[in-house]
């Protein structure tokens, strides 16, 4: 027990990683990983409906508003995709370390610091460097910052046995404090008295939209990142070594795998994803860094990753679903007179029910492969 710093039993770590030969029995056992989460979502929506009825609101209205605010019109769909972009990236920040057996919940901190650093490096470049190289520098700086930030958690886990879950959340609070320290002090834009912010990065450095839509490029990059990281984790030696380490730490050590470097690398990739989310929040939405970067995307991302069973390919659809719920939040607030925390209650409920449903795996004979 004591010499296995990362071997934890962990939901999702044992999920099927690479589809092998397609056979009907394989499909049967895979179906379990889709059917049970969907059942969990349905069950949590039913529970939430009971909750709404108990406080005298109509669940039918609620669902109709979620549909209209998140998916019903082309405007709302674009808004949803826009909001799912940071969710995809922060979910990757949970899913990649999960493969090596770590529960990292510090995506919010890496997002905030990444966005902050992106804005800071942009300011001296304004008017000097053309947009394209400047954006590349900003994105790189954001990913590097996020990578180091979460990489610290991985390093501390391996080298000192520090619990990575607590450490990553502590680093989130520290990261937000660092941003506030500079934004309210040395780097504050004094021409804006309302909200302490950095100077705007300028119109030239804003990332545009995907042609024909109002969705910024972050969404596409997020989906591509999911594809790339899926291939990395399931089809390369690196990914295999990481999964071996996550599955059995001692076996990985005995095989002579560089477990320390693997752990730090997985955490750094995770942080880079969250940092990139911060870059897009600054360069495509906010135009500057301030406290609204800490909008809770990092926390919703944890839920997205768990629902996707830590599988990068499943992250985009799940993120779009939650992007829709988040996008509909304002409409629900206005039309039904519900507090803005309504979405948080729903998310928390889904999370709790989902984890409870972990106990159902292997209980239904319908999912068992035939003849075994």
């Amino acid at each position, binding site marked *: 027990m004591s010499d296995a710093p990362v071997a934890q039993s962990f939901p999702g770590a044992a999920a099927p990683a690479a589809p092998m030969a397609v056979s009907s029995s394989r499909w049967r056992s895979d179906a379990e990983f889709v059917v049970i989460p969907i059942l969990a979502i349905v069950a949590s929506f039913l529970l939430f409906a009971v909750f709404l009825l108990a406080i005298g609101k109509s669940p039918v209205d609620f669902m109709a508003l979620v549909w209209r605010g998140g998916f019903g019109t082309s405007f709302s769909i674009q808004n949803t995709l826009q909001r799912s972009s940071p969710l995809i990236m922060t979910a990757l920040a949970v899913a990649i370390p999960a493969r090596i057996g770590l529960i990292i919940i510090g995506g919010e901190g890496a997002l905030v610091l990444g966005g902050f650093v992106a804005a800071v490096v942009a300011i001296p470049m304004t008017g000097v460097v053309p947009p394209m190289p400047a954006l590349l520098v900003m994105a790189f700086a954001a990913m590097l910052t996020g990578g180091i930030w979460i990489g610290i958690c991985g390093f501390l886990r391996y080298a000192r046995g520090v619990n990575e*879950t607590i450490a990553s959340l502590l680093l989130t609070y520290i990261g937000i404090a660092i941003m506030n320290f500079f934004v309210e002090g040395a780097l504050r834009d004094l021409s804006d008295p309302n909200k302490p912010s950095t100077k705007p990065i300028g119109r030239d450095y804003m990332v545009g939209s995907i042609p024909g839509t109002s969705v910024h490029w972050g969404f596409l990059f997020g989906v591509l990142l999911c594809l790339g990281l899926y291939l990395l984790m399931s089809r390369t030696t690196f990914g295999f070594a990481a999964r071996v380490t996550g599955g059995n730490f001692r076996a990985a050590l005995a095989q002579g795998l560089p477990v320390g470097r693997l752990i730090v690398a997985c955490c750094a990739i995770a942080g880079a994803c969250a940092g990139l989310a911060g870059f897009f929040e600054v360069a495509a939405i906010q135009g500057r860094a301030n406290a609204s970067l800490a909008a809770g995307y990092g926390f919703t991302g944890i*839920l997205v990753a768990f629902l996707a069973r830590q599988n990068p390919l499943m992250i985009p659809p799940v993120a779009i679903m939650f992007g829709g719920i988040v996008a509909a939040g304002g409409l629900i607030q206005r039309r039904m007179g519900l507090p803005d925390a309504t979405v948080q209650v729903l998310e928390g409920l889904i999370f709790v029910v989902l984890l409870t449903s972990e106990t159902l795996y292997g209980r239904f004979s319908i999912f068992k492969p035939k003849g075994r």
Partner: protein
Amino acid sequence: MESPVVIVLEAMLGGAIRVSTPFMFVALGECVTEKSGRVNLGLEGTLVLGAMTAYAISFHTGSPWVGVLAAGVAGSVLGAMHGSICGLPKVNDVAVGIAMMLFGVGVAFFFGKPYIQPVAPRLQSIPLGSWSESPNLRSALEVNPLFFVGIAAAFALAWALRNTRWGLVVRTVGDSAAAARAMGVSVNGVRLMTTTIGGFFAGVGGAFLSLSYPGSWNQGLSSGQGLMAVALVIFARWKPLRCVLAALLFGAAGAIGPSLQAVGVTQGYYFFNAAPYILTLVIMIATSSAKHSAADMPGELSMAK
């Protein structure tokens, strides 16, 4: 005229007593839970829900102590939820803790919205410093009764864990579930009980936040105290009395920022606000080891392995 150093030290003393109380309660609660071999990372959510419940009930009944009790009950409900979910096979207690943290905070913000404006009756402090001439020392020694309740609870828990049959059962479940089962003890039943007790303590800690210091309800009331208290239990080596000392240390660290503000140092306010987080991280680094598990750790604990 007092020198600024004395003022800062006095403010830190007062701050240590005030700020440490919620840490103390959450840490004691988590200590009991972890003694039985389970981790509840959701106490941050419990703390926030406790703060909201205490404030709302105190506002409606006019009695802050009823509010404290209600906060404890609300915390117990969340604790019982965590305990019963984790009793199911294949469920990971750390992940459920994260979910309960988000759920508890969400529920607290949802029902707490109408209570941000109104003023609820607060817990009265005991003026222990009335002998002193110094107004700063007097205000530093305005101690809330909950502080003493927490210390008494720590002594009671330390005694009960060591000397009673109940304590033996909890420790056995925490050190070896198989041995406890062989004794005929229901492992899940004991853990459900300790998680519920832990939730009660964390709820009361939340009541202190909203009814004494800072003494109002808003959405930024707690930022990580519940989580830091969980880290603090490792530092306190799962001993209730050490939890009290560790909480005082954290309270002093948390009081640095406001104390310096009291003498007019506003530079780096956010940096000093981050001091407790940094201190927690440093302590975790200093007390953990990659080679062997922490001293006195309950053997069944899934965390910090």
